[in-house]
């Protein structure tokens, strides 16, 4: 190995540690930023969202370790051949940075009606064992979409719901099967992260339903009514008011 290539190697290696540190710091900043502005809730359950902060801090410590790693020359003896990523490939680091890059380039958005169509056919009744915790109801508040569905499923007599006032938030979902005056006020249920999202929704009757944009977040108020669909009694909201609102900070419901 002549002098030139050795200097090259050295330069390459310090460059490698520097870019590793850079990627790790960028990832740490990304995690902490997501936790700070709350957008982390677009991606994972709030139960594990706090982990972003310690993870980000740990990444900073690791970056500092990369900065401290002495160059090969100073490290004297034993590590001449086996440095894990001895042959530096910027492309491979780019892959690690991909989440950060996508996170900044693509505007963060919670799952919406479009994601629903990829999960078409998942029924709009909550899976039996997933249920709203009823905390809202217990505190005298109102039922959300999931809690209404749970209440329907736990009830033996749906007719007792007829005429009850519902006030729920969700996004608009319509597909070809919906009549012009129908849509679903929908939410996604997240157990762990968006990979396990399950859509739930309540049918709504609203004369101008066809004019509502898909994915628009709305507040729906109105009394519940019952109808027969394919031999089954199904509750729906006979909406009296519909207000367009901005997407909530916490777009998902948790079982």
């Amino acid at each position, binding site marked *: 190995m002549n002098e030139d290539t050795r200097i090259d190697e050295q330069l390459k290696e310090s460059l490698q540690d520097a870019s590793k540190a850079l990627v790790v710091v960028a990832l740490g900043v990304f995690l902490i930023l997501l936790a700070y502005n709350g957008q982390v809730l677009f991606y994972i359950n709030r139960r594990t969202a706090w982990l*972003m902060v310690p993870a980000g801090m740990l990444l900073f410590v690791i970056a500092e*370790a990369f900065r*401290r790693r002495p160059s090969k020359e100073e490290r004297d003896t034993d590590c001449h051949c*086996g440095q894990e990523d001895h042959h530096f490939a910027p492309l491979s680091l780019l892959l690690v940075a991909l989440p950060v890059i996508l996170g900044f380039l693509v505007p963060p958005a919670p799952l919406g009606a479009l994601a629903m169509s990829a*999960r078409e056919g998942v029924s709009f009744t909550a899976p039996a*064992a997933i249920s709203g915790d009823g905390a809202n109801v217990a505190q005298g508040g109102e039922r959300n979409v999931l809690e209404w569905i749970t209440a329907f499923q736990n009830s033996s007599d749906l007719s007792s719901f007829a005429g009850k006032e519902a006030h729920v938030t969700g996004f608009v979902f319509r597909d070809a099967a919906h009549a012009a005056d129908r849509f679903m006020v929908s939410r996604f249920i997240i157990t762990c992260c*968006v*990979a*396990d999202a399950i859509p739930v929704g309540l049918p709504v009757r609203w004369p101008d339903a066809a004019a509502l944009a898909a994915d628009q977040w709305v507040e729906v108020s109105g009394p519940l009514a019952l109808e027969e669909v394919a031999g089954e009694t199904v509750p729906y909201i006979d909406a009296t008011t519909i207000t367009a609102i901005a997407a909530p900070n916490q777009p998902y419901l948790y079982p």
Partner: protein
Amino acid sequence: MIKMTLFKFVMANILSLTNLFVNSEMPLDLTDSRERTITGREYPRKDGYLLSIDVVPRKRSRPPRLWLALGLLVLALAAPLSGILPPSQIVAAVLRFPTFVTIFLGIFLEAVPFLLAGSVASGFISVYLDEETLARFVPRQAILATFIGATMGLLFPVCECGVVPLTRSLYRKGLPLSMGISFMLAAPAINPIVLIGTYTAFGWGAVFWGRIGLSFLIATAVGLTFTLARPADVFNPQMLETHCACHAATPRATERMPRFWLAMVAAGDEFIDMSHYLVIGALLTALIQTLIPQTVLLGIGQGPLTSVVALSALAFLLSVCSTVDAFVALAFVNTFTTGAILAFLVFGPMVDIKSALMYASMFKRHVVLYLILLTFLMTLLTTLYINLNLGW
């Protein structure tokens, strides 16, 4: 009907894709940073350090096989879709790009803290644990070691993202092959945190005890199978690089680099290395989830056999972290057999898209495939038995 044909077509494509991975000669090297040829020359270097094998970087002449495979997967998914769906639906698929990104980031963000924890543990092992200490704790007998590996899985709170870096560093310190396998398969499925989650979701019952029993059984059995294998046939060349002092031996602390920082550097290297696999696994999972409706999988059936197949496939493709998969499984309680739920909870933590990719960082590709198949078949047999004979 169309859905079934579509599904068969996609599965056929995925299978041929697996073949591509298995048969190609090139190692599944996602980073191409370690591509090198071994010339076998011996000569002393300037520093007097004698190398028996000279490692020379190989010119990158062809594109990494993985990108080819990814492209093929996209094509495989796009072809049937374009045949069946009108163009407007293809536009819709493109519009789903934000959904794809959201799911990708969701999986990645959920996994990062756990991968980081595993990497830090692995970093500290590589610096603080020396081979002699480990050797004293490892039983000589391979069979006993395999059992102890699975039992360790019951105790160490690591999920599937954390267990791979941990096992990798233990292997470098001389952990027996079969012990590492049984530990790696058991830990994500039956570690204390997962068991608390399973208890919360299902209570004491068939699912809780079944999960422990089956996971332990399968992890041990697969581990025992590997007592018959020679490590040289199992590990990929990178793991076998023991000629180099710094892979096997404990790095030496200096005044400027106390042991703590050495451990953190090792943790960082491990984290970056594993992140490649995590990112690719998350990309694949997100792609599949964006393009294939879950109903295609769940539609496979609800019979004693088909329900098991359906939920195993779902567990593999969802790649949900094992810490919370019990809650996800709750969603299937009323529609699927207990055997199928157990398959979801036993097979899913052992093998899914991202962990399969991470295994590829240690093992040769065909070994990864054996691991997947062996685990799947054993899950299938045991849960089918439960469905047919025990009536849980």
